[in-house]
């Protein structure tokens, strides 16, 4: 049973999920082989988060497909997140599985800071709305890697700074192969207490749209923080 910290008055969320523990172990092993610190968790009462519960209950209501939930490392920035995505891809390939990749995240995440009548819900600001629509345009064109490259800009423009970066596009693109070859479908876009919520599907395809000039590093193995201050010193 789960209860949300903010929206507890909306009721309790009972859940029972079927997990693919064999895949989780392989994912952990792959992450460690690429230099990441990783562990699996198997304890009665471990708290599953609101985002995972909502997504799994709505996308996979009868538990037909076993799931694997991976945490978001608080301190991780782009390099670790890209390498984590590649680790997931390694594990999928090693086990010869067909997998559906799910990221649970809002677009703009500024909520109203007071209680509102749901009938009066709207995106918090015109700027957030405009950016959300631009992101959805990219998704609609299947431009996932372009969004990954824009992630830092998106974080600066429309993300409340409660975490260090907007990681979902980084992880999703790295897991799915770092390109724009998708057919994109935006199934829904609505305000969620002021934040921007969208349901988007990306299906691998042949064509590619966009392809910005990619200027971010493409990291294969995580070697820890770079000593830029030491190496760059005169």
């Amino acid at each position, binding site marked *: *049973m*789960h*209860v949300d*910290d*903010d929206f*507890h*008055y909306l*009721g*309790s969320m009972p859940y029972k999920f079927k997990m693919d523990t064999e895949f989780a172990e392989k994912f952990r092993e792959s992450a460690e082989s690429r230099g990441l*610190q990783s562990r699996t*968790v198997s*304890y*009665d*009462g*471990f*708290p599953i988060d609101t985002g995972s519960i909502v997504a799994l209950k709505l996308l996979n209501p009868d538990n037909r497909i076993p799931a694997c939930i991976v*945490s978001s490392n608080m*301190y991780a920035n782009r390099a670790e997140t890209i390498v984590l995505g590649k680790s997931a891809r390694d594990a999928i390939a090693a086990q010869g599985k067909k997998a559906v990749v799910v990221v649970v995240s809002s677009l703009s995440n*500024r*909520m*109203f*800071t*007071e*209680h509102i009548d749901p009938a009066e819900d709207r995106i918090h600001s015109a700027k957030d709305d405009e950016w959300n629509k631009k992101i959805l345009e990219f998704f609609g064109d299947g431009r996932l890697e372009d969004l990954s490259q824009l992630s830092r800009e998106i974080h600066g423009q429309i993300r*409340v*700074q*409660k975490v260090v970066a907007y990681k979902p596009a980084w992880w999703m693109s790295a897991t799915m192969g770092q390109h724009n070859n998708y057919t994109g479908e935006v199934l829904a876009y609505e305000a969620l*207490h002021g934040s921007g919520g969208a349901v988007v599907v990306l299906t691998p395809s042949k064509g590619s749209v966009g392809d910005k000039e990619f200027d971010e590093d493409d990291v294969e193995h995580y070697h820890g923080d770079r000593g830029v201050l030491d190496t760059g010193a005169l």
Partner: protein
Amino acid sequence: MAKGEIVLGCLAPHPPHVVYAENPEQNEAFAEGGWETLRWGYNRLARKLKSIDYDAMVIFTPHWQTYIGTHFLGLPKFKSKSVDPVFPNLFRFNYDISVDVELAEKMCEVAGESGIVTKMMRNPDFRIDYGTITSCHMLNPEWDKPLVTISSNRNAHYYSPEVMNEQASALGDACAKAIEESGKKVVLISSHSLSHRHFVTESPLPEDMSREHIYNHSQYVWDMKLVDLMRDGKMKEVIDIMPEFTEQTIAETEAGGLTWMMAAMGYPEYPAEIYGYQSVIGTGNLIAAWDPLEATREIVL
């Protein structure tokens, strides 16, 4: 009815490691000890609390994070298991807690009247956060006093540490007024460490004290700066530099707990009682107390 009062304020860090190391029957994990400087400090403060007459503990926790106002636990009993999301290997605690709902409602009401967005939490399935459990267990292992748990409204995330300071101060003022009107004697608890940069790996034996040290010297220097100001009774100055401290040390003070407690206590100008300072997975943890009564105020360390 006599006016209610705050009889003690406690800074009570909540690394689950200290509960793990104590091996209480409620926790499933077993330890060979560890973090004695902190635990013995806690034990001493718990003994002082035994000598004080009070009705309830009011705790402000960074691990019940709310973005739409400040929330208060609003049912008389909560019973379940709390598992730490980062350290499930250490903390799987079966709790059975009592809440002073009357006092919580009073605080919610007075805070609401002062313009703060508030909400009572009345879902019986709600899981109590490990910060509340750790701090309260270490201060009162018998669990024989009711609690009021206050969520931390994340103003530092939405606005800035400066706005957090302002709003946490307003909440502290409102809670002090509510306590006065309630006629109750209350212990306040601000549950958090000071500097809060963690190691990103864990030693094979978590209680191996040969591995434990502060994350870096900068964090240590900042922590000691705060300890010195607390010893000197300069709590207004501590709160004034809180935004800078919070940003420099990634501190859990970002949640507003210390600001809330100091505002409620009128920014004490008397020395804090220092019970212990020790690092846990690299974070800086201080146990301190503010005793408004000069006759019982001690120099502990």
